[in-house]
Structure formats: C-alpha cells, structure tokens
C-alpha cells in the first residue's frame, strides 16, 4: 500500500502557451535563418542554374518548408499533449525547424550544399525513427493494430510528413544539381527537364497519396461528420493520380487537369486550416477554452501540408512543361 500517498498526477512542466511560444519562435528563427541563406550570391562561381530549373527547385523547397512548418507546430502540440513523456519527442519539432531552414535556404552557394543536404537527411531519418516509435506505441497497447489504437494511439502517418519534408528537400536537388553543370551552349539540356520533372512528379504524387491515407484515417475517426471532410480524401488523390500519370507518360493534354487539381489541392490546404479552426470552435467551450480544445479538436497546423505537397507537384509540372520548349 506504499503507493497510496502518491495519487497526484505530475503535471507538465510547461503550459500549452509556452510550447506554442517556443514552437513559434523556432518557426520564426528557422524562417529568418533560411531566408538569409536564400539571397543569391553575387560571388557565385558556377553558372546559375537555368531559370526554369531554379524556379522549380525553389517551389519544391518552399513546399518542403511548408511541410516542415506543419510538422513543427503539429508535433509541438501533439507531443505536448503526450507530455513529452519520452525525450525523443522533442526531436520532432526540433528537426522540423532545421528542415524548414534547410528548405528555405538556397543551395546554390556551394559551401551551403552539404549542411543543407544533412538537414534534409536528418528530417528524413528522424521522420523514419518517429514512424518506428509510433508503430511501437500502437503495437504495445491491448488490441494491437486495432481500429481503436490506430485512431487514438500515436498517429502512424504523422511522422511521415517529416519524412516527406526531408525527401522533397533532397529531391529538389535534382533540377538544380544537374542544372549547375549545364552550359548555355549545350543544345540538349532542356531535354533532361523531362526526366527530372517526372521524378519529382512521382515523389510528390506518392507523397500526396500517403498524406491522404492519414487524413482518411483521422476523418474516418471523425465519422466524416461534416461533408467537407470528404474533400481532402477525394481532391488530393485525384491530383496524385494525375501527377503519377505525368510521371509515367507526360502527356501535354492531361497536364491542364493535373495543374488544376494541384492548384485546388494547394487552396484546400488553406481551406482545411479554416475548417479545422471552425472544428475547434465546435468543441465544448470553443476557442475560449483554447488550451484544451486546440488539442482535443482537429489539428489546425495539419491541413497546410497539402499546400506544401501541391507546390512540389506544380514544380514537377513546370519542369515537364519546360522540357518541351526550345533552348534559349
């Protein structure tokens, strides 16, 4: 009976406000650091990448940064909800911040290339480790991989967003890396855009499908109680399908639909954020009780990740488009 006196629950060392403040500062710092490294260097020794390639790479990296921001805020909130009971839980928001800075930075300054690559690889690695932790968290509960545990234990798909952020960061090197070696007198260099674009389309399309699977699980948990909850499980897969179609066989005719569905997916990221803000309001006490409902309601930082993936998909289409154009 020794434990009788110890029935008081230890409370977290921080309040949600503290966590959000730290996460916000981390996000701001990552953006500032990344943006400083983004400015073009006047002393650049290599030939600047071709404009289409540079623009596409930029868009992919912006997408990766948006994904990173989503992971940073979401994991800070959700891991706070889990009271950071495992120290590894701090890694998710910290790595996301690094991922944001690395994605926003411009890799054409050579001395930055390796650190940025490490940043992306770190996001990829920590994301995969997170998947492992989350799988373990589900598996150890009574019922194992039951629906109840998939719904309420550590979300299996969530660390995947960190993986995708790192993956997009690395993938963004495809156009720039190859572009740097090119010379304006090379008559064939735009043809390589096609391969690079198709590779990116495959990455972005598969990422969209993975993200959709996670959204489906959680919206299914919410019983699709609002018809709008079907949008993010129908629009992004359509965009993903059209992207994958471009990756397999880049046909110009169907590219307009791909572009349209990706733009709609990008807008959906913002609309989803609005819906989730409204969803929090529908909990008992609404936003007046934000310190509980921001955690209990739908995650407000989550939907914007669709915008990030859509940007990467649009960049892929841009590259594929550029492949058909004459050399300048």
């Amino acid at each position, binding site marked *: *009976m020794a*434990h*009788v*006196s110890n*029935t008081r*629950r230890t409370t977290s060392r921080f309040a949600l406000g503290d966590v959000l403040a730290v996460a916000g500062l981390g996000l701001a710092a990552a953006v500032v650091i990344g943006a400083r490294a983004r400015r073009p260097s006047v002393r650049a020794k290599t030939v600047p990448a071709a404009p289409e390639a540079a623009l596409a790479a930029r868009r992919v990296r912006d997408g990766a940064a948006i994904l990173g921001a989503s992971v940073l805020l979401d994991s800070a909130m959700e891991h706070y909800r889990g009271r950071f009971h495992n120290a590894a839980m701090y890694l998710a928001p910290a790595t996301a911040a690094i991922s944001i800075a690395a994605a926003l930075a411009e890799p054409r300054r050579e001395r930055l290339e390796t650190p940025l690559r490490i940043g992306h690889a770190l996001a990829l690695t920590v994301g995969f480790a997170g998947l492992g932790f989350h799988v373990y968290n589900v598996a150890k*509960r*009574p*019922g194992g991989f039951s*629906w*109840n545990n998939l*719904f*309420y234990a550590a979300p299996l798909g969530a660390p995947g967003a960190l993986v995708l952020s790192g993956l997009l960061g690395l993938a963004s090197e495809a156009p720039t890396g190859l572009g740097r070696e090119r010379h304006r007198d090379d008559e064939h260099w735009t043809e390589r855009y096609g391969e690079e674009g198709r590779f990116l389309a495959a990455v972005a399309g598969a990422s969209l499908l993975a993200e959709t699977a996670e959204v489906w699980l959680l919206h*299914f*948990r*919410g*019983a699709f*109680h*609002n018809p709008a909850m079907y949008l993010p499980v129908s629009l992004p897969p359509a965009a993903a399908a059209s992207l994958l179609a471009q990756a397999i066989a880049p046909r110009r005719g169907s590219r307009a639909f791909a572009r349209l569905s990706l733009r709609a997916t990008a807008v959906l990221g913002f609309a989803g954020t609005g819906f989730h803000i409204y*969803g929090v309001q*529908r*909990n*008992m006490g609404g936003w007046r009780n934000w310190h*509980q409902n921001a955690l*209990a309601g739908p995650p407000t930082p989550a939907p914007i990740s669709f915008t990030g993936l859509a940007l990467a998909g649009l960049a892929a289409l841009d590259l594929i488009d550029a492949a058909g154009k004459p050399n300048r």
Partner: protein
Amino acid sequence: MTRPVGAASHGAEVRPRAQGGRAPDVFSRDGTVAMREFRDSDAVDFAIVGTGCGGGVLAAKLAEAGFSVVALDAGPFWRPLADFASDEREQDKLYWLDERVSGGEDAIELGSNNSGRCIGGTTVHFQMVSLRFRPEWFKARTKLGYGFDWPVDWRTMWRYYAEVENACKISGPISYPWGPPRGRYPYRAHEVNAAGLVLARGAEALGVAWAPTPLCTVSAPHGKSPPCVYRGLCKIGCSTNAKQSVLIAFIPRALAAGAEMRDLAMVGRVETDGNGRATGVHYHRSGEWRFQRARNVVVSGYSIETPRLLLNSASPQHPDGLANSSGAVGRYLMVHSNHAVWGEFDEEIRWYKGPPSMACCEHWNYVDDHPTKDFFGGYSFMSQGPLPTDFATSMVTNSGVFGMDLRRRMANYNRMAGLKIVGETQPQAENRVTLADEADEFGIPRAHVAFSYCDNDKRLYRHSLTFMRRMLAAAGGRNIFETESTAHLMGGCRMGLSPDDSVTDADGRTWDVPNLFVCDGSLMPTASGVNPAMTIMANSARIADRIKALAAAGDL
C-alpha cells in the same frame, strides 16, 4: 429530497418551463424554442404519459407523422448546460425518488440505477451503454428454452435498432465480436480509458473477446452537440450535451414537429367512458388537477409507474385496473443483477475519466454449451468508473467497511478497477408492482414493488462473480472484493401473442382498450443480458411506425 443549489434548477422543479407557447432550448443556458400548445378541451390524437425511451421517441415520430401530440411528464424540463452541477448529491434531482414500497426477498433499491424523473426520462442519467439483443432472445422460449417469446421478429427489431442508433449517433466499434453483422455505427468508438483497458487485458489473458462499448455520446460533433470531453460525470447528467439522451436527441425533434411537452405534469388516472374506451388523462400541474382529452392514450411511465397508473385507473368496466383482464399488469417485473468485482492495481487508472463503461464483454451472452454454464439466460459485463460517493456508498453497504478502513480504501480510488454485470433475471409472475395502501402527495396510491431472485438468477450471478474474479486477477488486480446491486427495470406490462398472458399486442395496444397503448420498457417480456435502453427505443420507434400503419388503415 432534492437540494437545489442553482436558482435556475430550483425554478424548474417548482414552476413549469414549457408554457406560453415556449419550451426550454436544451442547447442553450436560458433560451427557449417555439412550442405548439393544445387546450385541455382539444381531443388530441395522442396523450403520451412519460417522455423517456418510450414516450419521447414516440412523441417525436408521431408528431413528425402529423398527429397532434401532448406528452406529459411528472418531472422538470432541464437545460443541461445551466442546470447540471458536477456534484453527485445535487444531481439526485434526476432520479425518481418519490417513496415507493419495496418488498420481496431481494427488495430492490429504486432511484439512481433505474428510475428517472424529468423530460427525457431515465436516459438523462443512463450510462449510455448501447447494446443490441442477441437475436435468439426474441424467441427465448422457443429457441433457448426459458422465459417468454416476444411477438416481434428479430430482423424487424434489427432495422429499428439501426434507426435509433443513427438518431443517437451511437459511437461504436468498427467490428463487433458478437452476433450477426449490424452495419457500421454512425460514429467511431471513443478511446478506451484505462479502466476499460483493464477489462481488455483480462479478456486477452482469458482468451475471450472484448470490444470498445458502443456508447450514446458522440465522439465527434453532431448538430449542436460537441464531442464528449471525458469529464466522467455522465451518469449524473451530461452537462455538455455530448450525451445523446432522449432530452437531446428526440425532444427537440418532437417540439419542432409540433408536439407539446408538459413538464411537472403528474398523471394520476386514465379516464375511460361507458364503452371502456380511453377518453383522456387526469393530471396535476401548477397546483391543480386538470383533464386532457385525447383520442388515444399512450402510457410510457416505465415498469413501475406504468402499471401503477393502469392499476389506479380502474373503472366499472375495468375493475382490476385498466387493461388487466389477464391479470398481467404489474407482473413479470424484471431487473438486471448488477454484481461486481473490484480490485486494486499497481498503476494509476483514474476510472472516473470518460464514460463509465468503455469496454464490454458479451461472451456469456453468446455461449450456450459450456461445462460451467449452469443457468439459462446470459450476462454481459463492462468496465466501471463509479463516482466517489457512489463507490464509497457501495463499499459501506456491501462490506460494511467504515472509518479508517473506508478512508484507506478510498485513498486507493485512483488505482482501482472493476467489472460489473448486466445479468438477466427470469420473468416471474410474483415479481410485481401493486398499489400500496398509503398515498403520495397527489393522493395517488404509492407503488408496492416486490422482487425476489429465483434459483436460476442466483446461479447466473454466482457464475459471473467467479468468472470476473478470474479476469480481474489475470489483469493484475489484487485484494479483490465483490458487491451486489441491481440496475434497470423491464416488464410489468408485457406484450405478447395472446390476451391471456400479456397486456398488449405486438403494437403496444392493450388487448382490452383499443385506444390505449403502452410504449416503454414495461412491454419487455424478457430482460436479456444487455442494458435495455436501445431495445426500448427501437421498440418504441417500431410501435410509432405500427401506429402510423394502423391509422392509415383506419384502425385507430
């Protein structure tokens, strides 16, 4: 009996709120919604006595079908957001605690576990466990060799279960381990709390199935109801409206469709004319007796008040009480045995968190042949989350612990878990409601309730105690002890196939008085091994459709 703390709630208990063309808006703290009103002299299509699983569901469906409906309830019309306190004693105001005389060898305690008194009825304080009958139970006599056959086919009931489960947005598991397929529950099951995981661990250790309990509280927003916040005070009235009680899920529908709700209206007598037909109800409201005329009367007062009202409505044509030519009014009253085992655990459980019964096991409802099964019928059991006063009271009354011993045990409250059965009892003619000699404040004879377990009932709960003891120990429980109590009421005016041994036909229409219906849990011929709320609601939804069909055929 009740000690209100809030001015608002006190007002609801002394002054009717549903009047002047307005009724309380249950989704607000002090708002109202429009309500159609009828005059006493209007012969309404239906006067319904009671507004719970029976009357509340019926009022909504009949009003939506275009009938004129007045539903009367003895209790107040609460606004949960304003009137419900997080205090066990304050919330005693939800129970029917008027004095009743309880007798028999195993006299039952009446109140929190079985009787409600407010608009919405017992569902305002029920524990939201939303299970379906095993199909064979509807033909228990023919198929399983005990009890009494229902005059209804299980497939019909299955459809109406689906209807009311959808109306209440039941949050249940994706796949349910027992019985035939039941379609997908409208909402997903809640996260199982630590008390439920104790049951899960024990079930996995013993090799029997378990499931997250289908619950009548939403796991995602629904209309004006927010999702459950797992405060754990559900049993004493949900103060967020996540719980889909009849007050929340059906009364607003009934009002919107033009039904009138009369709160604080105690019906004392159903009047019949010289032809033996019902003409209306006498009721007491705002300090005076009044008479509401009606073309049809439906009694939905549950297993004690329904027989009491029928017995008190005797007339020269019905000398033994209304609809009692069979002598079955008040008889075959059943309860659920509510025996439990409790144990202490090493880890913190905090069983008060969330709805009280988040995991369930129906194993012994579906096993017929087993060497240890020495009884007819079945039982289910659920994980538990009793509130402190409730649990302390239970320990004092069951084991007599007191003083420092009680204090020491209660200090372990956050590290306890328990399993409690819903155990079937057999319908026995001598378990019955009669009129006592003494009268209540309205001059109506009090109900006398006699109940005794039969040998089969005792074998059943003994079996459950042995099994649950093993399971709790397998889950890591120590210092295991047992308690006993009862929950729920079933029967008292059972429906059947013959006027000789039942009060009503399959439509709830009394055999003796063609324009008098019964629609509540008292119709149940057998008790089953599951909580009765969904079955009563499904049966009421079915009766509503039957009444519509009868009206369409000119047979009302």
